[in-house]
């Protein structure tokens, strides 16, 4: 082959790929239309104007079952917006508070908030949500117990006094607000502005006083009625979204505050500003600019995570679409609506933040600060007893404020630990059955003895469960291997592949005397581990291609890569899973049937690939341009440059990021239960549905939560270990 021929061949590759892709797309489309026609499924969006017929519990606008599907979807969309807005506000406030606590000079407070962050970040959101829901549902009293106050909390929700406005008042208020907005727009000057605002606030108060009223919650025939009711599902969703995001936001804020050059606060101190002033006027405003881009991206996550409401029956957008799909069978349109809506939401939030940042004269990309340093916590001198008193004086009892704080925290911790211990040990039941547990007030450990197998292995045939255990062990030992720096070679990927193959073969059986076990019986821990590890290993090569594709000079390659990455990253994982569970069968010929497990696996791989591709692209961007130019000058071809020069360097930089993506994948696997795959979380939920075990959900979630925490926490340690090693090496 001559040089020209080789170049020709290489140049032809993308075009051939494109042509192949088009042919494949045509084939898929043909199959789809064929399948749809076959199954008499309607297409198009006409159904939106049909009568919906189902009721929705929480609505912000008037909705009755007689309204159209479009109205139902609007209700869902508004609920999503409300949940997202509240989640964003509360998580930001909580995140700031946790961040301040984390940066506190009080050793105890800093450590406790560190613990909070680690706990929240390493347990899947869905699990946290189920715990919140179970606590609110089983922990709170039922309705009708005790008198109803102005603020009433029972297991149906929170009942608040509502402000009502009779009809003429509404019109007046609306006019006042509109007039106010117009005048404010016209009067741009500061002083005028303030005066106008005050004047119109006064006018707006008038209708409120004249026509307004307060509707108090009262005891009705069925629980509390009247007032404003926030349902248990609503509270669960807002609480879990806020807490989950707060842990991440706290770390983002901390990083940003630490990235503000130390000279700034020193200068402020030198000018005589108090510590509070320094923080509020100098550090936080600068930190906020640095924090804005990562914070926005976390708020986008909160919007996407609000779709988890589908799992607890809160009627947000995805949940309503799910109902609509099951009533009309129009899965393609439904999933299309989910993807389009969330893309629109993400884009508009990015747009708004971008505009806001620009208006304040900030670059949306943030500023390069100094690199984030670990917290300046002084470790406890465990070894030298003589150093203890002075250490405690410095870190716990410096000044009276510190001392009070320390004592308060100590008292609270002691009370909490005391109650925890008595629940875990002293009041707990260790032997016997459900009947013995009902007599004791503490934890019910016989529950775990009876149900641990169900939680770990689910519906896998009991006689064969050792295979399930062996499969999980193979994958876990592979994880353990990954901790040894000696094995950090590219061959580690092959070892993982091997472990996955062994696990699949063990679970499947059908050879060497092992009976065949069909895929729908696989469940519990091995499924979770398998889904997560295959998602990561499978996504890796795809992510590399996508990362290079996105940086390619050719539009034919670059645009599809960008479209894929952005579409997937803009859609909540549930949307992608629905796509796999509901749509996949429509795109393949009917004689090919694929189990739901491989289906969600493919969805997870594609989803992970989009996120990994961005991490790897970040690595590629970090490589100096000189590297590629030098390779070019040395006569390396484009692929040689990529293979031998760019990729190794990019991967080295992006390994910590890739491990972090793996952590989110471990947590993301829990979402598969929504499309009916029995993962570890689903088997956990099954373990307490039986009447006798129903009160012991806490034990179940503690067990599963501990497993997830162990997996995610050890992975995050691995990421830090690799990062340290890289820093030393390079």
């Amino acid at each position, binding site marked *: 082959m001559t040089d020209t021929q080789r170049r020709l061949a290489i140049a*032809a590759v993308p075009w051939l790929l494109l*042509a192949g892709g088009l042919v494949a797309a045509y084939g898929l489309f*043909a199959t789809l239309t064929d399948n749809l026609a076959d*199954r008499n499924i309607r297409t198009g969006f006409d159904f939106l104007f049909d009568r919906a017929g189902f*009721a929705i519990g929480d609505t912000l606008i008037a909705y009755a079952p007689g309204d159209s599907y479009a109205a139902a979807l609007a209700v869902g969309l508004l609920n999503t917006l409300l949940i997202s807005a509240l989640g964003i506000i509360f998580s930001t406030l909580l995140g700031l508070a946790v961040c301040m606590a984390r940066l506190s000079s009080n050793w105890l407070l800093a450590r406790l908030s560190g613990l909070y962050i680690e706990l929240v970040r390493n347990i899947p959101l869905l699990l946290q949500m189920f715990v919140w829901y179970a606590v609110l549902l089983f922990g709170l009293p039922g309705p009708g117990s005790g008198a109803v106050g102005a603020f009433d909390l029972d297991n149906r929700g929170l009942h608040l006094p509502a402000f009502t406005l009779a009809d003429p008042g509404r019109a007046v208020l609306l006019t006042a607000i509109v007039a106010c907005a117009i005048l404010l727009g016209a009067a741009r000057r500061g002083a005028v502005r303030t005066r106008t605002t005050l004047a119109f606030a006064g006018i707006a108060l008038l209708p409120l006083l004249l026509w307004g009223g307060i509707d108090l919650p009262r005891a009705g025939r069925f629980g509390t009625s009247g007032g404003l009711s926030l349902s248990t599902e609503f509270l669960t969703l807002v609480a879990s979204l806020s807490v989950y995001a707060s842990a991440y936001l706290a770390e983002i804020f901390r990083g940003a505050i630490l990235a503000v050059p130390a000279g700034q606060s020193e200068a402020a101190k030198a000018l005589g500003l108090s510590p509070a002033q320094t923080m509020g006027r100098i550090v936080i405003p600068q930190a906020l600019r640095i924090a804005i881009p990562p914070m926005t991206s976390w708020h986008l996550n909160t919007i996407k995570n609000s779709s988890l409401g589908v799992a607890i*029956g809160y009627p947000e957008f995805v949940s309503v679409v799910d109902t609509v799909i099951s009533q009309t*069978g129009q899965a393609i349109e439904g999933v299309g609506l989910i993807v389009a809506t969330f893309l629109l939401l993400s884009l508009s939030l990015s747009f708004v933040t971008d505009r806001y940042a620009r208006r304040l004269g900030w670059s949306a990309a943030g500023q390069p600060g100094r690199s984030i340093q670990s917290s300046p916590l002084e470790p406890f001198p465990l070894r030298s007893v003589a150093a203890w008193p002075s250490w405690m004086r410095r870190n716990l009892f410096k000044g009276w404020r510190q001392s009070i704080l320390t004592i308060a925290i100590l008292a609270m911790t002691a009370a909490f630990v005391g109650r925890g211990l008595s629940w875990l040990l002293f009041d707990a039941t260790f032997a016997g059955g459900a009947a013995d547990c009902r007599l004791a007030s503490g934890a019910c450990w016989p529950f775990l003895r009876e149900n641990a197998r169900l939680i770990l292995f689910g519906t896998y045939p009991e006689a064969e469960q050792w295979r399930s255990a062996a499969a999980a062990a193979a994958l876990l030992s592979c994880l353990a291997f990954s901790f040894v720096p000696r094995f950090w070679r590219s061959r580690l990927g092959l070892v993982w592949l091997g472990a996955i193959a062994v696990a699949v073969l063990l679970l499947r059986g059908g050879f060497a005397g092992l009976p065949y076990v069909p895929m*729908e019986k696989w469940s519990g821990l091995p499924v979770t581990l398998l889904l997560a590890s295959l998602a990561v290993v499978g996504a890796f090569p795809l992510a590399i291609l996508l990362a290079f594709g996105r940086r390619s000079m050719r539009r034919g390659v670059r645009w599809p890569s960008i479209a894929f990455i952005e579409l997937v990253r803009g859609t909540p994982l549930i949307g992608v899973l629905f796509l796999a569970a509901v749509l996949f069968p429509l795109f393949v010929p009917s004689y090919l049937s694929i189990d739901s497990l491989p289906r969600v696996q493919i969805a997870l791989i594609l989803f992970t690939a989009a996120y990994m591709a961005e991490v790897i692209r970040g690595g590629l961007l970090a490589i100096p341009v000189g590297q590629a130019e030098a390779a070019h000058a040395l006569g390396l071809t484009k692929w040689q440059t990529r293979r031998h020069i760019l990729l190794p360097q990019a991967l080295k930089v992006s390994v910590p990021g890739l491990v972090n993506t793996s952590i989110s994948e471990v947590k993301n696997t829990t979402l598969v239960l929504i499309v009916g795959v029995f993962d570890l979380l689903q088997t956990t*939920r099954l373990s307490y549905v039986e*009447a006798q075990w129903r009160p012991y959900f806490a034990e179940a979630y503690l067990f599963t939560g501990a497993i997830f925490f162990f997996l995610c926490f050890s992975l995050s340690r691995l990421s830090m270990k690799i990062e340290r090693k890289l820093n030393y090496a390079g």
Partner: protein
Amino acid sequence: MNRSHAPRRWLPALLAAGALLLSGCDREPAGTGGHEIAAAKGSTLARIRARGTLNCAIHTGQLGMSYLDQRGRWQGFFVDYCRALAAAVLGDARKVRFMPVASNKRFTIVQTGEADVLSRTTTWTLTRDTDLGVNFVGTMYYDGQSFLVPRRSAVRLPADLDGASICITKGTTSELNTAEYFERKGLRFQSVVFENPEEAKLAFFAGRCDAMTTDAFTLTVIRLADTAHPDDYVVLPERLTKEPVGPVVRSDDEQWYEINKWVLNALFAAEEMGVTRANAARMRMASRDPEVRKMLGGLPGFGKSLGLDDGWAYRAIEATGNYGEIFDRHITPLGVERGQNKLYRDGGLIYPLPMR
């Protein structure tokens, strides 16, 4: 950059060649692929025979209807229909692959052809029969929607539930019926919707809702199996709706539909004729009634018209027993009466079509 000029000149020619090649390749396999689809479309029966197993979509877990027994085997009223069907079609009641499926995904799994038959509590309605590309085989169980309420709540009629919150499972007819019922009566209710019945149950017993609604059968079972004191709860006697439930198949295969319809009917007819699991073998050869022998294949029967051999009904009955036996095995032990599900001659609605 200069280097890339040379290949560019060749590109159009190359592309043209590639396109030719691809279109040539495309035509051939797509054609054969098309035939395969057509063949698959044509005969579900052939596909099942080639596969060697019957793919049967069932409920994910409902006592009496489809549930896992101690040994991890699927059992139940609708599970036995799958077994009878597999015995009739494949000659072996064990050759069934059970596919548990949630309410809101059940039609998709039949529409896509993943499952050959959907055998679970699915209500037969006009829109489902016409819009979803499926056919209802027949009514295997007559049920109706009702409410489960705590006895102390003093609710005795559905209309007493004005302003109550009601736990419902998503994507079911109950969801639509409840909304329609309350709208018709001009009453209000708060719907609390759950992804699956287990969660709805859990929330109801925790006091999240004032009532739980679904088919009366399910409610009766829940009251018996999931409460420590069944007497604390009542299933309201009034039925909101008619809920005839039965197996479902895809609508594009007439032959497969007929097979299902007549296997189900054979189970009904066997009870009417007194053919049981125990005496089927004897009756096949020795019954005095030629109609019985014809149905069981003792005399040349109807197998050919269905594309099966003559022993199909005999094998189905031998595998599961007649309709009454299936009912007594799975439903009666739960304390649910046969009521409307008796044979027509005993005052029920089960009316076997003539097997001749």
